[in-house]
């Protein structure tokens, strides 16, 4: 390949002050992602030799990490200055490559997602054209199959189908079935380290094809939609040593409101184990590695497109604090194979015709401590919500001790939150106001 690409990248980085990610570069120049990664690497080397104005780079590191005796597969975006440190922590390095090059020292990983957003949106149909991930079985459903899935979905009434989605409203129902296949893929990449999760995740992939098992498969999905969400937001206030995995950011953010997760302790685990936003994928997805986002994004962006059409007429009705604060709804009615403290909840809460469920929501609580300083604490609180409501009622956030054992702390949190939840009244408003979080001190 000719050397013109060096000039191109130079123009993007220095003249336009852009953040050049390998994915954006591959879509812009029309090259395979691996080529784009190499291009960025050579560009970096070239520039470093010339000692020109300072450039910053981020790297994508994949490998195995031992953590409290548990091995997990980790995919992380790391800043250059933390790269060596992170690499030394990994027990097995699977791949390291340049993720992005930019002039600015990014304080957080948000812009990395924003950069690719429009490029991928424009190339929605073929955004995986240049990716290295291939799966011959992953084909979008035809219209007939889609209808079948929809019918099956509506048929069983006991199936908890609530897709709370304040933004999309009615569109939530329509886009629900079509979001099942992407969810299947999503479930794989949002896995936590526990082996039991891996088992259920394996179910997810085959269930994609079987329409009949779609609802079941989803319910037993190891979920942890809440996990990436938690990681995404929960560690914001902690040291920003590492950056989050971008793939997980992309997927949960747009489809956050439609995802379901079934285990509460999974959110804790990453919060406990890692103050950083690291996501572990299961071994099955090892081959997909870093290009993981490409195939899932295809469906993701299709979803976004559908939802946006409905969202458009009310651009100003969306608050800044709309969805992402609350990890998607939890399935509490089904007994999951893992310890499930929340499975006790439905029996307590559902007695009316509306099905009330509990759900873990990340809430911030601001209060004054002994010295009169304002302290912000983020914790998971179990909230009750009703299917028919567009919004959820808020319970007092329960502070979780991150170092405590998973089960015991989650059980404590349950009890605390439950007491407070019962004390709260149903607001019944369409949207929580932005100051709603801070009223209870």
């Amino acid at each position, binding site marked *: 390949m000719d050397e013109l690409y060096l000039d191109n990248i130079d123009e993007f980085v220095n003249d336009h*002050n*852009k*953040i050049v990610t390998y994915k954006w570069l591959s879509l812009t120049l029309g090259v395979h992602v691996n080529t784009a990664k190499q291009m960025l690497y050579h560009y970096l080397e070239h520039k470093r030799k010339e000692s020109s104005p300072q450039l910053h780079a981020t790297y994508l590191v994949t490998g195995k990490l031992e953590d409290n005796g548990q091995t997990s597969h980790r995919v992380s975006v790391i800043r250059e200055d933390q790269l060596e440190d992170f690499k030394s922590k990994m027990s097995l390095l699977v791949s390291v490559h340049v993720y992005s090059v*930019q*002039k*600015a*020292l*990014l*304080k*957080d*990983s*948000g*812009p990395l*997602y*924003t*950069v690719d*957003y*429009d490029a991928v949106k424009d190339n929605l149909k073929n955004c995986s054209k240049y990716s290295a991930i291939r799966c011959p079985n992953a084909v979008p459903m035809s219209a007939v199959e889609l209808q079948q899935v929809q019918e099956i979905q509506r048929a069983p009434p006991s199936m908890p189908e609530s897709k709370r989605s304040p933004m999309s409203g009615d569109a939530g129902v329509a886009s629900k079935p079509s979001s099942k296949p992407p969810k299947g893929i999503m479930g794989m990449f949002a896995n936590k380290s526990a082996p039991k999760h891996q088992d259920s995740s394996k179910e997810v992939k085959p269930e994609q094809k079987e329409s009949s098992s779609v609802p079941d498969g989803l319910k037993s999905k190891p979920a942890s939609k809440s996990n990436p969400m938690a990681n*995404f*937001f929960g560690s*914001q*206030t902690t040291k*920003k040593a590492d950056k989050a995995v971008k793939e997980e*950011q992309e997927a949960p*953010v*747009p489809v*956050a409101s439609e995802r379901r997760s079934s285990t509460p302790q999974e959110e804790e685990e990453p919060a406990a184990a890692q103050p950083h936003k690291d996501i572990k994928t299961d071994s099955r997805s090892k081959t997909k590695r870093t290009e993981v986002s490409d195939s899932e994004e295809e469906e993701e962006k299709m979803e*976004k497109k559908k939802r*946006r059409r409905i969202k*458009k007429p009310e*651009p*100003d009705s*969306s608050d*800044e*604090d*709309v*969805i*992402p*604060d609350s990890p998607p709804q939890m399935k509490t009615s089904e007994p999951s194979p893992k310890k499930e403290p929340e499975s006790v909840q439905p029996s307590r809460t559902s007695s009316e015709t509306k099905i009330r469920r509990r759900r873990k929501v990340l809430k*911030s609580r*601001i209060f004054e401590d002994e010295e009169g300083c*304002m302290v*912000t604490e983020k914790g998971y609180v179990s909230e009750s919500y009703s299917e028919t409501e567009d919004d959820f009622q808020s319970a007092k956030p329960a502070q979780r001790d991150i170092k405590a054992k998973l089960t015991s702390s989650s059980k404590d949190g349950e009890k605390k939150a439950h007491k407070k939840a019962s004390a709260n009244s149903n607001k019944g408003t369409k949207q929580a106001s*932005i*100051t709603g*979080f*801070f009223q209870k001190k």
Partner: protein
Amino acid sequence: MTTLTRQDLNFGQVVADVLCEFLEVAIHLILYVRDVYPSGIFQKRKKYNVPVQMSCHPELNQYIQDTLHCVKPLIEKNDAEKVVVVIMDKEHHPVERFVFEISQPPLLSISSDTLLSHVEQLLRAFILKISVCDAVLNNNPPGCSFTVLVHTRDAATRNMEKVQVIKDFPWIVADEQEVHMKEPRLIPLKSMTSDIVKMQLYVEERAQKT
């Protein structure tokens, strides 16, 4: 699809709402990126489908909301020419000014289906540009504070003084020293043109910051 003209009651409000929401997000992001407040008070939230940093501090949020609440009527009537976020050092001399120049075309009409998603895309680009602006700006000295100035056309401020939009939140005419900066360097960041609004963002930076 829907064709709204300026005469329509809601149209000015729609544009003002969109702009004020954007300005709120932009101000929070500027405070985050320029380190005006410690990053601990910021939390990731979603706007225009991308992550942005918003502060959690209730009084700061209330201040920004009240500010924009007062600016909104000016934008509705197309009286606001520039909204400026000024970052000042300890002696209240401006070190940086983020200038949002806003203009609305006189004959506005929304006639396109994809208008709002197009505007969203443009605003997203603004957000991205603010996030990487630290590459082109020098660092600020510690202990900075910020304020918001609005440059209006004509005598719109007289109305503002007469009618307090929010009780106990008065707007005053800015001091000379807050408005003018010594030896400013101009760095353009982004501009956008759409059917409903034209906006330009640039930064004026003082040559010597400390």
